[in-house]
């Protein structure tokens, strides 16, 4: 039981420390701003560890963080292979193809009201299909390897991107478009110099939503057929073998990859849409 009390003691101490930090001048500095959430994260891990050890929780229900970390340390080659298969080959190409296709279709829709009435409902229809129904079909079509996973990701990413880009292309103000007209600008000039920059806040909203969808799609699609590696494959087989420490290790990798992916998009967004009121500092 002593592990439990130690953990609770650590929790209370860290709590007090954070309360003190938040009120002090340290919290105004860059260092302080990073320190407070780090202490909080460490507290969660210590409390988790203490609870699992102190209460003797079965590893199948919840393995301790130290056990998961040890598992990660000894399975690095496997985890890397899974990561490369699912994220680098499945999620990212699917994400890029889906977003790119949505962009081209959005331009086509923008040029033709006929397509707007025709293509948006079809896109909507595809987006409404449940992924658990779609994934087996796409696995049949494109095979067990990463191509079918990328295809699932394309389908999942396409519609939210399309809707956001179409909305973004209409986001410029009428006066700004009138100005382009008074200068005798062509469609392309007006698109590149006005409507695409004005659409960027919408595009990045779409990209952020799509980044999490891409990860989910790539992992879940592997449940319906995959080679003997990949994060989705790992999760479904290790659950069957009660290797929950490996499942948690894979989840940790997925969480890390998702956060890095999302963070990267946010960084690019800050750089591209620095002018938007939500980004000005």
């Amino acid at each position, binding site marked *: 039981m002593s592990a439990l009390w130690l953990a609770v003691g650590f929790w209370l101490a860290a709590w007090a420390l954070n309360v003190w930090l938040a009120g002090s001048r340290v919290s105004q500095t860059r260092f302080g701003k990073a320190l407070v959430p780090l202490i909080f994260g460490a507290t969660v891990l210590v409390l988790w560890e203490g609870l699992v050890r102190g209460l003797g929780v079965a590893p199948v229900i919840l393995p301790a963080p130290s056990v998961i970390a040890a598992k990660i340390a000894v399975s690095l080659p496997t985890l890397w292979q899974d990561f490369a298969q699912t994220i680098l080959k499945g999620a990212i190409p699917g994400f890029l193809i889906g977003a790119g296709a949505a962009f081209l279709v959005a331009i086509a829709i923008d040029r033709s009201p006929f397509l707007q009435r025709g293509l948006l409902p079809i896109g909507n229809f595809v987006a409404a299909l449940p992924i658990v129904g779609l994934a087996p079909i796409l696995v049949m079509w494109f095979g067990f390897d990463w191509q079918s996973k990328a295809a699932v990701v394309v389908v999942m990413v396409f519609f939210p991107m399309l809707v956001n880009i179409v909305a973004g292309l209409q986001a410029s*103000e009428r*006066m*700004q478009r*009138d*100005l*382009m*007209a*008074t*200068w*005798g*600008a062509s469609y392309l*000039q007006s698109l590149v*110099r*006005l409507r695409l*920059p004005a659409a960027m806040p919408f595009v990045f909203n779409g990209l952020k939503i799509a980044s999490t969808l891409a990860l989910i799609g790539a992992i879940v699609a592997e449940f319906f057929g995959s080679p003997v590696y990949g994060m989705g494959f790992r999760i479904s087989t290790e659950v069957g073998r009660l290797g929950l420490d490996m499942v948690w290790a894979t989840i940790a990798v997925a969480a890390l990859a998702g956060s890095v992916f999302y963070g990267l998009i946010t960084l690019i967004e800050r750089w591209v*849409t*620095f*002018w*938007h*009121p939500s980004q*000005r500092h």
Partner: protein
Amino acid sequence: MSQPVIEAKGLNLVFQTADGPVQALKDVDLVINQGDFVSFIGPSGCGKTTFLRAIAALEHPTGGTLTVNGMSPDEARRMRAYGYVFQAAGLYPWRTIAGNIRLPLEIMGFSRAEQDERTERVLDLVELKGFGKKFPWQLSGGMQQRASIARALAFDADILLMDEPFGALDEIVRDRLNEEVLKLWGRTGKTIGFVTHSIPEAVYLSTKIVVMSPRPGRITDVIDSPLPRERPLDIRDSREFIEIAHRVREGLRAGHQDD
């Protein structure tokens, strides 16, 4: 000097709206000569903005004729015959002030060197020298509007159309900018069309005041101002000024009694 630049004959413009057709302009006849400073004044709905937008080919008349430099407004637009200043500055927030002024020059295919040279010159003209690298949201409303005027001047069109450019600014800034616009007009000899709903502004600026009234939008009076081209701010206390202002006010009131 008195060459006609803009000619409207029997101009009609009807908008089709959900509530049925709205006659925005009815039988408008007007000649604007080169170098004129013409103000359009009237209550909202009188068609003053619509007329300016029709000159700029942003609206399309449903009847009558309208020519700009002897061409149709659409041809004149493609020939880049005019610069247009809207009620709000409408600067693109992702471009610096200089980048905004350079934008029409890029679109019209000026060389890089000429873009730089012209941007510098018009920034100087509107007294924004040194602000080229700022972004629009870092400047006050008055400065933004001056930048938008600089943008309209950059490609040196002979006609400048301004739609209540200072409507959203306070009185003091407005006086300053009015003075600057007059100076600019004196220096460049451009033909200016200026929409306003302020009587003093119209009288102070114009060589020709067009009084309009609503439902349907039409011209009720055209006043050729006897004021000299040189106009210090205190000309607004002179007897002539007050007489013209009175006539404008009478014209506006007459338009309203027809309702």
